[in-house]
């Protein structure tokens, strides 16, 4: 592979696992530097692209409209195009953008943990297959995933059926599915997040808790009646840095 081709491939996807590209980068210092720069660029892009989501987006008014539609009641949009129409026009649009921005900022500042819970719930949709695995994973596989975040799990403390490293708010975090007596729960170890105390949530079909831990914050979610608090306590006791 020539340097020009390698640079093009890196600019298309710096995280590419193409073997020819990897071999070239390994023996070409200039392309290795280029790759490092682009990986750093992507890290910053990913963090910047994760704009805060206004609390209104997580509100339930869309559900009510859906319920109305389901009941064959004519659902009149309460926001949507009508609101868009109002913000048309140069100054009006600019003023509206500023207002929404300030409002969103206030909401973001006022309810940061709601957003954390919402982001955790949103992440669940990225890996629906995680719930379908039922066989316990080998200890070494789980250890390998946790080691990427400098974590370890006490042997035989919990039964893990799924382990993966995921992007979450611009960081790589362990995503586990743990089997409990009351059903499977997802555990995300958010080493870069802090919550002052236990916070429960019920959103998007998931019940869950955020709990503080020496390892950061544990997010534990269930889709059914699994006891998330018990699972959180048990996993927290089993994890160490």
């Amino acid at each position, binding site marked *: 592979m020539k340097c020009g081709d390698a640079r*093009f491939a890196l*600019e*298309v*996807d*710096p995280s590419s696992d193409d073997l020819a590209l990897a071999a070239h980068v390994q023996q070409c210092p200039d392309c290795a530097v280029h790759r490092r*720069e682009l990986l750093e*660029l*992507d890290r*910053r*892009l*990913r*963090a*910047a*692209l*994760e*704009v*805060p*989501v*206004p609390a*209104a*987006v*997580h509100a339930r*008014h*869309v*559900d009510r*409209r*859906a319920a109305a*539609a*389901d009941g064959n009641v004519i659902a009149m*949009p309460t926001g*949507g195009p009508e*609101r*868009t*129409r109002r913000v*048309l026009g140069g100054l009006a*649009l*600019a003023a*509206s*953008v500023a207002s*929404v*921005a*300030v409002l*969103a*900022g206030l909401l*973001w500042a006022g309810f940061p943990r709601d957003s954390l819970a*919402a*982001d955790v*719930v*949103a*992440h*669940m*949709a*990225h890996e*629906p297959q995680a719930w379908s695995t039922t066989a316990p994973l080998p200890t070494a596989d789980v250890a390998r995933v946790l080691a990427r975040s400098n974590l370890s799990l006490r042997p035989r403390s919990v039964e893990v059926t799924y382990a993966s490293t995921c*992007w979450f708010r611009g960081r790589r975090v362990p995503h586990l599915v743990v089997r409990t007596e009351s059903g499977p729960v997802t555990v995300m170890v958010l080493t870069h997040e802090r919550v002052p105390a236990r916070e429960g949530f019920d*959103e*998007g*079909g*998931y019940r869950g808790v955020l709990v503080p831990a020496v390892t950061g914050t544990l997010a534990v979610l269930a*889709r059914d009646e699994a006891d998330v608090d018990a699972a959180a306590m048990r996993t927290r006791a089993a994890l160490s840095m």
Partner: protein
Amino acid sequence: MDPRRRRFEQLCQPLRADVYRFAFWLSRNPTVAEDVVQETLLRAWRSIDSLTDDGKARPWLLTIARREHARLYERKRLETVDVDDLAAAEDPALGRSDDQDAFADVRAAILALPGEYREPLVLQVLMGYSTDEIAAHLGLSNGAVLTRLCRARQRLRVAVLGAAREGST
């Protein structure tokens, strides 16, 4: 809760943040993005039975969002906004306390990208799409997607890393 509603809740509601962010970067406007989320979820609810593979809920929703965004613009002919004004106005909402300036610069650079470069980049970096998936989503050839991703990063590399270096010397 009836099974249809439960399915909608489990598949679509957790993706609201993704739909909002995708719509935000398409429209570069938080108000429009919220509207797109509403319209997308309403349309998704009406056609949830057409989603045959639960594992594809996210690309399905993003495709709807893209169409709804286009419909909004088609219907209303939304006026364009100066990117500098927009970035400045959005800083309070979009910045994060731990790295506000860095994010503001990067976001301004992304906002300044032409839409044809910005959308595939968002799909790849934020949504984790492969280039094949981006090509299918945008109705483009794979080659066109590679070129757009490459040009997007070339521009952003200069705008983001170039600026950082100048600032640090």
